[in-house]
């Protein structure tokens, strides 16, 4: 913790160049995206397992707090993606380092340029929604309350991680190899080498996938259109007849091209790549600031593993599950209950 505080205060005090601020933005945007990813994967899985909860989740997304969050999310994703490309390119071509500062400015500029039209389009959706006299917005208390389980879940994951770390420490205590004062000989880690490559390669793959996803779900059709009736669901030729979010999901996942559920495949790829990328990134951040305590540091690694496994399992099962008419009916009932 002290090292986190020190890093934050000293990063503010050290007059580093743009690269330093790019790194700060990269971390913050990454952390934000991982947090949203966690909510989003669990929420979306409910469309299969608990349609009523999914309806509520989408209603929560349609509240002002989450609308602000959505804009921040888009900005974070765009910046993180472009800056990630910059880092990956520099990592693979170190000789280009001379252009790093210019590249950092370009990333900033490109992000802004890209976000201007995106925000205008998104803002159009928001205006439409608030111009609709029949709009229904959940009370703020409901919004907070609905996030409580996530907060509890995150705390539990952290506690479980540290607990596992403790058990790990008891079962396999770290051998203190007697080291000569002169020579400390660390050993190479194949894992870290793998992760280094994974972050960069997955980054290249995620960028088109996630940009496509954002375009469909936030720009072309916003989060408000998910619950619009008699509307062709994006990426399909099927109309959302009930105007429920569950049918929206069902339309997409059941849409076949040549007998293949393309959007399921798309989302499976997106889920696997982003969750692993995101939680490994989270591990980088958490282990950076917990170097002083082996227990906590290892605990943070376990937390990340737990988090990633849960999301992969829950999200994966949902993507393999079926959404039938019963689910859509349950969603309709839930809508009625939510906005009596």
């Amino acid at each position: 913790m002290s090292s986190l505080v020190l890093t934050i205060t000293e990063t503010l005090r050290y007059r580093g160049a743009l690269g330093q601020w790019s790194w700060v933005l990269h971390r913050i945007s990454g952390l934000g995206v991982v947090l949203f990813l966690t909510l989003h994967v669990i929420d979306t899985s409910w469309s299969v397992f608990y349609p009523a909860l999914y309806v509520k989740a989408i209603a929560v997304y349609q509240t002002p707090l989450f609308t602000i969050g959505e804009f921040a999310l888009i900005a974070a994703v765009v910046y993180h993606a472009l800056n990630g490309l910059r880092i990956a390119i520099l990592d693979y071509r170190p000789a280009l380092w001379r252009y790093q500062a210019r590249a950092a400015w370009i990333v900033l500029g490109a992000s802004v340029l890209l976000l201007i039209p995106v925000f205008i389009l998104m803002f159009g959706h928001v205006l439409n929604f608030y111009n609709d006299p029949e709009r229904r917005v959940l009370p703020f208390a409901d919004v907070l309350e609905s996030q409580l389980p996530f907060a509890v879940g995150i705390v539990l994951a952290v506690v479980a991680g540290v607990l596992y770390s403790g058990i790990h420490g008891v079962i396999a205590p770290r051998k203190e190899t007697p080291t000569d004062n002169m020579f400390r000989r660390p050993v190479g880690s194949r894992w870290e080498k793998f992760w280094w490559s994974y972050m960069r390669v997955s980054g290249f793959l995620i960028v088109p996938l996630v940009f496509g996803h954002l375009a469909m779900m936030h720009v072309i059709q916003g989060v408000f259109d998910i619950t619009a009736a008699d509307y062709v669901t994006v990426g399909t030729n099927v109309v959302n007849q009930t105007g429920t979010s569950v049918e929206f999901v069902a339309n997409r996942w059941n849409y076949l091209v040549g007998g293949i559920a393309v959007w399921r495949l798309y989302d499976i790829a997106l889920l696997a790549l982003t969750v692993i990328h995101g939680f490994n990134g989270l591990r980088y951040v958490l282990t950076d600031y917990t170097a002083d305590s082996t227990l906590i540091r290892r605990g943070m690694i376990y937390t990340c593993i737990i988090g990633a496994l849960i999301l992969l399992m829950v999200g994966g099962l949902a993507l393999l599950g079926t959404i039938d008419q019963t689910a859509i009916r349950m969603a309709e009932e839930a809508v009625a209950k939510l906005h009596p």
Partner: protein
Amino acid sequence: MDVTFRIRRYNPEIPGKDKPHWQEFKLSDVEPTDRVLEMLHRIKWEQDGTLAFRRSCAHGVCGSDAMRINGVNRLACKVLVRDLGNRIQVEPILGLPVLKDLIVDMEPFFEHYRAVMPFFVNDTPLPADGRERLQSPEDREKFDDTTKCILCACCTTACPSFWANGKYVGPAAIVQAHRFIFDSRDLAGDDRLDILASPDGVWRCRTIFNCTPACPRDIEITKAIGEVKLAIRNGSTEGIIEVRDIKHEA
């Protein structure tokens, strides 16, 4: 010109000064071309002899006087007053324990240095003619940049990864390893690459680029670290460094 110095002081031996604190000194008759080190000497020799800092060669070669000056790591002997203005803030470099005023404990830094096998290894028989091993100017050029390192610690203590995690081997040690990894005569490159592939090795570098501008020797540090990462990934140093055209004397 008149210059005000604001210096981070700490002296555990004197009650009341045993917590880090700022102290101001005023100097007059300062020439714009004076080095910060000369000003620190004037403060020490004319105003307060207890001010402690390291220095030796005074022209940027020995690496003793790394400090954070106006927010950036520099050598006090290599930065002139005219580049700083008339308010100059000096504090110890960050990430190593402060012992007194501007003096930090360099031991953790040198421990990282020693960990990367910073010495030439080649146990094959020497040339039969009793002369030097041969090396082409192109091969020599590949590691020229990293031979310039003077171990001043400006880079390592400018790195947010190192601030957060003192176990990170740090830019300077990687630069030192690079000098041997890319030396065509050296044979222990694989050992060094393995050392640097450890969890607190090169992977803690987040390509932040604070090290490169901090280097008083203008070493392209982040580039060197990148080259080491690629060598680890490829399992070989082949083809990583493209030698710029080297012109020979006629």
